[in-house]
Structure formats: structure tokens, C-alpha cells
């Protein structure tokens, strides 16, 4: 078949809605992860951090459930309403939006969509925290810096250590706590064809960090597609996503 632009337009306008197969080179299962700050993971060609993300525990009970396995890494855990003693969710957690349903990662690997990769977070050593904290105190609380990015990256582990230091009313502590509390993110996804038509779309949907979500997508002329992913904050102004 000759693939002229006219033919494409005709097919697009008249026949795309019927028996349309959605062919992907890989998988439409989309993983979203956020990552940064780990040496060796930055791809200068793309200006991206490409390593698997670290995962840490959101919520106030982080200090109780941060667990380090035999490899010395923090497991990707979620402090939902139904977590096992090791911090792993035992069942799906209802998302803030009907379009996104939480599905926990497996105990060793992701439940699906992200192949077999784990998403460990290096342990945030107390000495390292104090080193970063001392550096942070020497700068403006809101200065976008690597020190602040790293404190935010460790999230719940940072929260745990913050409870151990004096200075309840310090501006640095207040700013950092405020930033660490921003654990709700908004995700939008779309698949735009060569005619500029959005064939698959997830409207702005609020999702928690760290938890793999499955998304209900709007479709136009194509069959439903499974989409999933995870989001994670990796700095003051950076969110790592993998779909």
C-alpha cells in the first residue's frame, strides 16, 4: 500500500475507529519513577538520571517501617492503611482519584509493568544526614541546591532524623518539613498521533508517590490500553516518573 499523506488522512478520518490495533514496540504498561542524586546514574546525553529510583516510605510512620534487607538497601515500601509488619501493602490502596488505582509492588519485585527491577533506596546514614543538615543550615532555607535536593530525596528517612534534632521553630526545619509534606502529585498522560490527535489520555489525576498506579485512560478510536506507573519526588523541583 502506498503510504501517501492523502491516504493517511483518508484512513484517519474514516476508518481509524474500526478495528484499530494499538501496536506498541514495547509495552504500554508505563512505569513512572523519579530518581536522582545517585552517582553514576546521570545520562549526560539526555540530561537525565536513568538509574532505577530509590524508594522510601511516605507518611508519618516512616520511622517505624523503614527496613533494610540483607543487601543493605531500603525496600520499596508504602505506608498505606493496610501494610504488613514489614511495611509492604497487603492489598490495593484506594487512590485519591477514581482514575488511578494503587497496586503495591511485590515483596521482591514490582507487581508488574516495571519488569523485575527493584527500586531500593540507599540507607540514609545518620552521619550523612547530619553532614547535609549542617550544610543546609549554612544556606538560605529555600535555595535550590544539591543539599536540599538530597534531603528531599531521602524523604521519610529525612523526616525521621529531623525529629531527633533541636530547633523546633527553625526556618530551615519548617521549610524542609513543608517540602517533605508535598507527597501528592498530579500526573497527566497522553498519546498523540501524527495528526496531533490525542488517542489516549489521562486527565490531570492526583496520585501518591512511591505507589505503582494503574490508570483508566480516555481513548479515541482505539481499544483500551493498560497503563501503569509510579511517581517519586527526587528533589526540590524534580519528579522522577516512569510509565
Amino acid at each position, binding site marked *: 500500500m502506498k503510504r501517501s499523506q492523502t491516504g493517511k488522512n483518508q484512513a484517519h478520518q474514516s476508518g481509524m475507529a474500526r478495528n484499530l490495533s494499538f501496536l506498541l514496540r514495547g509495552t504500554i504498561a508505563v512505569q513512572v519513577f*523519579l530518581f536522582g542524586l545517585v552517582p553514576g546514574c546521570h545520562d549526560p546525553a539526555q540530561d537525565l538520571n536513568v538509574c532505577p529510583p530509590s524508594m522510601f516510605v511516605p507518611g508519618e510512620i516512616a520511622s517505624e517501617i523503614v527496613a533494610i534487607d540483607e543487601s543493605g538497601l531500603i525496600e520499596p515500601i508504602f505506608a498505606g492503611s493496610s501494610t504488613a509488619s514489614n511495611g509492604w501493602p497487603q492489598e490495593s490502596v484506594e487512590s485519591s482519584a477514581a482514575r488511578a488505582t494503587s497496586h503495591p509492588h511485590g515483596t521482591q519485585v514490582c507487581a508488574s509493568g516495571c519488569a523485575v527491577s527493584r527500586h531500593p533506596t540507599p540507607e540514609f546514614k545518620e552521619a550523612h544526614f547530619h553532614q547535609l543538615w549542617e550544610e543546609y543550615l549554612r544556606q538560605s532555607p529555600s535555595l535550590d541546591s544539591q543539599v536540599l535536593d538530597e534531603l528531599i530525596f531521602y524523604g521519610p528517612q529525612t523526616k525521621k532524623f529531623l525529629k531527633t534534632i533541636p530547633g523546633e521553630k527553625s526556618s530551615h526545619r519548617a521549610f524542609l518539613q513543608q517540602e517533605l509534606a508535598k507527597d501528592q502529585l498530579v*500526573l497527566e*498522560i497522553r498519546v498523540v498521533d501524527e495528526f496531533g490527535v490525542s488517542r489516549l489520555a489521562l486527565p490531570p489525576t492526583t496520585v501518591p508517590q512511591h505507589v505503582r498506579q494503574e490508570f483508566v485512560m480516555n481513548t479515541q478510536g482505539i481499544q483500551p490500553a493498560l497503563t501503569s506507573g509510579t511517581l517519586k519526588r527526587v528533589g526540590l523541583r524534580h519528579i522522577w516518573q516512569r510509565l
Partner: protein
Amino acid sequence: MVHRIDDDWKTLDEIWLSDGNLAGKAKVQARVSFAKDRNEDS
């Protein structure tokens, strides 16, 4: 992929769409931000 908070749509991948006769490329794009209202409530 890492997004900055103020980033607009970023292309994650290119895939193929086909109705069996024609195939054309499509872009998978995403955009992320903070959920301001929900975070302010927390």
C-alpha cells in the same frame, strides 16, 4: 525520566498506531506537578 515542576509535556517514547492498513508514529507524553490543594491540606 525526570521532570522539573514547571516542565510542559515531555515525550517519553514513540510508538506505532495502526488500524491494520496504515501505521503511524505517536508520541507518549506525560506532565507532572504538585497537587497544591491536597498538599496544603496535609
